[in-house]
């Protein structure tokens, strides 16, 4: 038995080593950093212990801007993407020919490089000296004014960011919802039709409750994912997100660590812990609601 135990731990050793170095130790360390006041990477010294880092971050206008951007992004994209994904999945579920083709097409954004395709969105929305960009031309065609979505007003930039985020998260949601819909026993639909329910009622009373666990799963993961948004913003607006006014909380953390305002891991840690607290709170609220609303 003793020999056996030793052998088992040997099998686990690589995983434990790596997890210890790059996950457990950092977790403890990030707490330490967040409490060390005035720490500087250059001198590797600090002059006090306390909550100053948190209060600094919470008063930093860049951080507040990042929080505002992130919350807006979350509130707009999570319901929107889940709703559209549900509609598309229902549409997919109702057809037979071409279903596989559509499923394949819809999944494409999942396997693309966020940064690379973000550039395509940028040139579609950007207004330059040479051209107003395709989107603006279309707006113009339908009688609207032109606006620079990449370097223009805040709402326009926010719109592009949300649009791109929805585009990027859609494949995962469609995939999950289509398989959830496909796993509903078709006998329930037959039964509901026999009971004279029209399609809207079948959807509200049968389909929706049956797939509600998966919808809540998507909402929860969607919230978590959207709170950690960063790469999409970089792809559209470049690395200097503070200047563009489009930074996100995660972006703020990385900027504190590295880049123009970098070298301050204490502030980064404080900001990361604040983000973690927000995500944890929201997830708990989500779970509480889902306990009440989801039937099984």
């Amino acid at each position, binding site marked *: 038995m003793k020999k056996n135990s030793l052998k088992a731990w040997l099998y686990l050793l*690589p995983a434990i080593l790596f*997890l210890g170095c*790059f996950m457990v130790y950092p977790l403890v360390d990030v707490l330490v*950093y967040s409490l060390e006041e005035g720490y500087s990477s250059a001198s590797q010294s600090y002059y006090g212990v306390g909550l100053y880092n948190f209060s600094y971050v919470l008063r930093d206008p860049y951080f507040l801007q990042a929080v505002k951007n992130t919350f807006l992004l979350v509130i707009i994209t999570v319901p929107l993407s889940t709703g559209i994904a549900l*509609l598309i999945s229902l549409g997919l579920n109702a057809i037979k020919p071409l279903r596989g083709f559509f499923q394949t097409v819809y999944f494409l954004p999942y396997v693309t490089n*966020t940064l690379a395709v973000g550039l395509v969105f940028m040139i579609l929305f950007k207004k330059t000296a040479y051209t107003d960009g395709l989107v603006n031309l279309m707006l113009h065609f339908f009688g609207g004014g032109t606006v620079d979505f990449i370097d223009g007003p805040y709402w326009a930039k926010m719109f592009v960011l949300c649009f791109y985020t929805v585009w990027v998260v859609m494949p995962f949601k469609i995939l999950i919802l289509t398989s959830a819909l496909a796993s509903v026993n078709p006998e329930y639909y037959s039964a509901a039709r026999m009971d004279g329910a029209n399609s809207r009622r079948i959807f509200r009373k049968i389909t929706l409750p049956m797939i509600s666990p998966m919808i809540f799963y998507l909402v929860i993961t969607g919230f978590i994912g959207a709170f950690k948004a960063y790469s999409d913003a970089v792809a559209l607006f470049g690395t200097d997100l503070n200047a563009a006014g489009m930074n996100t909380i995660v972006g703020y953390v990385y900027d504190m660590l590295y880049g123009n305002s970098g070298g301050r891991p204490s502030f980064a840690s404080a900001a990361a812990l604040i983000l973690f607290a927000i995500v944890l709170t929201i997830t708990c609220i989500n779970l509480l609601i889902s306990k009440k609303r989801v039937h099984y």
Partner: protein
Amino acid sequence: MEAKLDYDLIERRAALKKRLFRTADYFFLVLWAVMVLFPFYWMILTSVKSYSSYNSEYIPAFFTLTPTLLNYREAFSAVPLARYFLNTLIFTVATTGLMMVVIVPAAFAFARLEFRGKQLAFTFFLSLMMIPTELVVITNFVTITNLHLRNTFAGLILPSVTSVFYIYLLKENFEQIPDELYRAAQVDGTSDFKYLTHVMMPISKPTLVTIVILKVIECWNSYIWPRLITDNPKYFLVSNGIQEIRENGFGRENIPAMMAAVVVISAPLIVLFLIFRKKIMAGVSRGGTKG
């Protein structure tokens, strides 16, 4: 007679409703397909337009009659795109390979071996799944910097070779293999290691392939960690490369060449996806999330 007419009406209405619904459904689905495909079309289209014709089009043309591959040559010659490519390939292969070496024995130990503290260790592993990467990246950045591993492959690779989630996924899969096989192997005098490599891994091949594919996608698209840890273009991965192209390279002016680079970067994963479509989609629905 009147009742008869009534039935006819109901029948016709039901049929009409069905047709209308079907048409609207397809219209809607095609619309979203266009939304998804259009950026891809646009990037390919732009990449084959010549620099001068792109810049002379105030209203962009939706097709081009004189496609050119010059932009691709430009993309590879003006910036070290081939280098970024090679770096990404090395990074992806090494990370994925090392990860498999780390997670397979761990999953095996949890699934098959009995040892003291197993329950505790496994619970601890599971609880690590809840830790967001953003939280640990900060210290890892400092650690790698202090070890002078910035701008090295070791610095890029080491922090991402374990995944608690994949250990969990694999362990669940290993546990599905019936006990009798293990007993039979023990009776035959097979060692644990040989049992793992000769019996368990072949049986679990579908799951292993799924994990490899998901990890490859993740590696190929990773941006944040490489950006933190590399500032020397010699070690840039494609994501960082494309960002560099956009901010400092030819991208500002030469959009067609930038799109050519984007096409080249996106192509491998799309090809991989088209080949392993079913596997990838099944794998993702079993527990992948983006990023």
